[in-house]
C-alpha cells in the first residue's frame, strides 16, 4: 500500500520567508501588549532609567519607551512591508507584461526603467518626498517610486530567460493558452527570484524609512517611528544613553533578520545575485 507523503522540502525551502513573515506579524500585533499608551506624556517621570515600572525607561516627555518601541515597530516594519507589497503588486505584473509582450512596448518601457535605475534609490526618495512634502504617506510613495524599477527589470529578465527555453516552446506548440503558460511555467520562476530580492530589500527599505524619518522627511513627531524617535531624543543622548541605544538596536536586529532570511533563501533556491 502506498501512503501519499507530504513534500516537506517545499516548506524547508521557504522557511526563511515564513520566519520573516512570522516576525512581521509579531511586530504588527505587539503594540496590543504595550503596558502604556505610547503617546501619553508624563512630565513628572521623564528621562528615567530602565526599571521595573518602565522596562526600557522613559523619554524626554516621560513617555514609556518600551510602549513606544512596540508601537514604532508597527509603524517602521509595517510601512516597510506595505511599501514592499505595493511594489510587488505594481512591479510583477508590469515586468511580466513587458517580458511577455516584448517588441516596441518593451523597449520604450525599459528605457524609462533604466532612467530610473540610473539614480540611487535614496536620492529619488529624498527628492520625491521633498517635492511632495515630509510625511509618512508621501514617504511610502517616494520609496515605491524609487524601488519599483529594479523589480520590473528582474521580473522581465526572468520571463525573457525562461521564454527562450524549450519547455515553454513545447507548451506553446502543444497549444497551451497564454495565461496557463504564464501561471504554470513562468510565475514559479519569477516568484522565486522576486521573493529573494524582496526579502533582501525589506531590510534596506526599513533602513531607508528610518533614515529619512531621522533627517525629518518621514514620520513626524509624535508618531512613534524608530528613526523619528532617535531624532526627537537627540538632545538627551548624553544624559540618557538608553534613548539612543535601544531604538538603534531594534532597527539593526530587524534589518539583520531580514538580511539573514534573504541570504538563506537565496542559498536554498540557489539563485545568483
Amino acid at each position, binding site marked *: 500500500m502506498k501512503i501519499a507523503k507530504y513534500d516537506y522540502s517545499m516548506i524547508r525551502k521557504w522557511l526563511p520567508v515564513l520566519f520573516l513573515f512570522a516576525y512581521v506579524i509579531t511586530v504588527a500585533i505587539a503594540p496590543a501588549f504595550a503596558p502604556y499608551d505610547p503617546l501619553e506624556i508624563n512630565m513628572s517621570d521623564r528621562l528615567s532609567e530602565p526599571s521595573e515600572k518602565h522596562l526600557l525607561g522613559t523619554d524626554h516627555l516621560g513617555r514609556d519607551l518600551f510602549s513606544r518601541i512596540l508601537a514604532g515597530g508597527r509603524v517602521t516594519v509595517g510601512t516597510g512591508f506595505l511599501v514592499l507589497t505595493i511594489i510587488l503588486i505594481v512591479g510583477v505584473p508590469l515586468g511580466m507584461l513587458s517580458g511577455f509582450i516584448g517588441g516596441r512596448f518593451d523597449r520604450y518601457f525599459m528605457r524609462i526603467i533604466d532612467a530610473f535605475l540610473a539614480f540611487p534609490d535614496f*536620492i529619488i526618495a529624498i*527628492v520625491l518626498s521633498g517635492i511632495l512634502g515630509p510625511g509618512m504617506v508621501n514617504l511610502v510613495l517616494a520609496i515605491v517610486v524609487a524601488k519599483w524599477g529594479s523589480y520590473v527589470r528582474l521580473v522581465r529578465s526572468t520571463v525573457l530567460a525562461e521564454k527562450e527555453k524549450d519547455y515553454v516552446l513545447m507548451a506553446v506548440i502543444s497549444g497551451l493558452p497564454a495565461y496557463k503558460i504564464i501561471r504554470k511555467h513562468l510565475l514559479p520562476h519569477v516568484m522565486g527570484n522576486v521573493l529573494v530580492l524582496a526579502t533582501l530589500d525589506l*531590510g534596506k527599505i526599513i533602513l531607508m524609512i528610518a533614515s529619512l524619518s531621522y533627517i525629518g522627511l518621514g514620520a513626524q513627531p509624535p508618531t512613534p517611528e524608530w528613526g523619528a524617535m532617535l531624532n526627537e531624543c537627540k538632545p538627551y543622548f548624553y544624559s540618557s544613553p538608553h534613548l539612543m541605544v535601544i531604538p538603534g538596536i531594534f532597527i539593526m536586529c530587524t534589518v539583520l533578520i531580514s538580511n539573514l532570511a534573504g541570504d538563506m533563501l537565496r542559498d536554498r533556491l540557489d539563485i545568483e545575485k
Partner: protein
Amino acid sequence: MAYIVKRMMEFLLFFLLLSFVSFVFIKLAPGDPVKQMLRVDEVAVTKEQIESLREELKLNEPLYVQYWYWLKRFFQFDLGHSYMTKKPVFDELLSRFPATVMLTCTSLMVMVFISAPLGTLSALYKNKWIDHASRLFALVGSSIPSFWLGLILMDLFAVKLNLLPSMGKGTWKHLILPSLTLGIAMSAAYVRLLRSSLLESFHKDYVKAARSRGISEKRIFFFHVFRHSLIPVITIFGMSLGSLISGTVVIEVLFSYPGIGKLIVDAIVRRDYPVIQGYVLFISLLIVMINIFIDICYRYLNPEIRLKGVERR
C-alpha cells in the same frame, strides 16, 4: 570617441525630459511659491505684492511658456533664487559642493582601506577565521543604520573621549567621524563582493595555465587575478558612487556638515523649491558624468570591450 558622443546625446535627451518632469512636478507641488517667498520675511503681505511678484516670476503665463523661460535661464546657469537666503541657487550649490566632494573622497578612502584587504584576505583564506569575521562584519555592517553608527561614534569619540569635534566643518578633524561612519557602512557590501569576485577568478582555467608556465603565485594573484576581479567591483562601485552621494545626505545632516546634502534637507523642510529643483538637476548631471567615467574605466580594464566595441549592457 563616437561612443562617448553617443552617450552624451542620450544624456542630453534624458536631461531635457528630466528637467521638464521636475519642472512640472514643482509646479504641481502644494503651496503657492509666491506666498512662500513672501512669508519668509514675516511681514503682512498685500495683494499687490503678490501680483507683482507673480508677474515677475511669469507665473501667469501658460506652463510651456514658463518652461521655456526657465530652460533659457537654466542654460545661463540661472536656476533662480533660494526663497530662504535670496542667493542664486547655482552659487549656493557650488559653494556647498566642495565640502561634499571632500567627504565623499575621504569616505571612499576609508571604504577602500577596509574592504580591499579584508576582501582579499577572506578570499585567500576561504573558510578560515578571517573569512568568518569578514562575513560577520558584512552582515552587521549592512544591517546597521548609518546614522545610528554615526551617533555611536559621535558619542564615543566626541562626547565621552572628547578627542574629535562632533559638528560642523573646518579642520581635517571634522572629517574623521563623518567619513569613518560612511566608509564603514559602505565597505560592508564590498568585502563580500570582492571576495566572491576573487574566488571566481581563482578557478578560471587561465589561472591554471599561468601556473603551468611556472609563474609565481604572487604574480598570478596581482597580475592575472586581481585586475580581472576589479571589473565587477568597478561596476558596482560606479553604481554605489550614487549611493555614496546619497549616503552623504544623512551623514551631513547628522554631523551638521555644510555640504549639498544638508542644503537639500534644509530646503525640503522649508519648501525651498528652487533649491530642490537645482539639486535634482545638479545631482542627475553628476550621476550621469560618473556613469560615463565608470564606462571609461571599464573599457580600460577590459580590452575586449574597448577593441571590439561590445557594450556593457
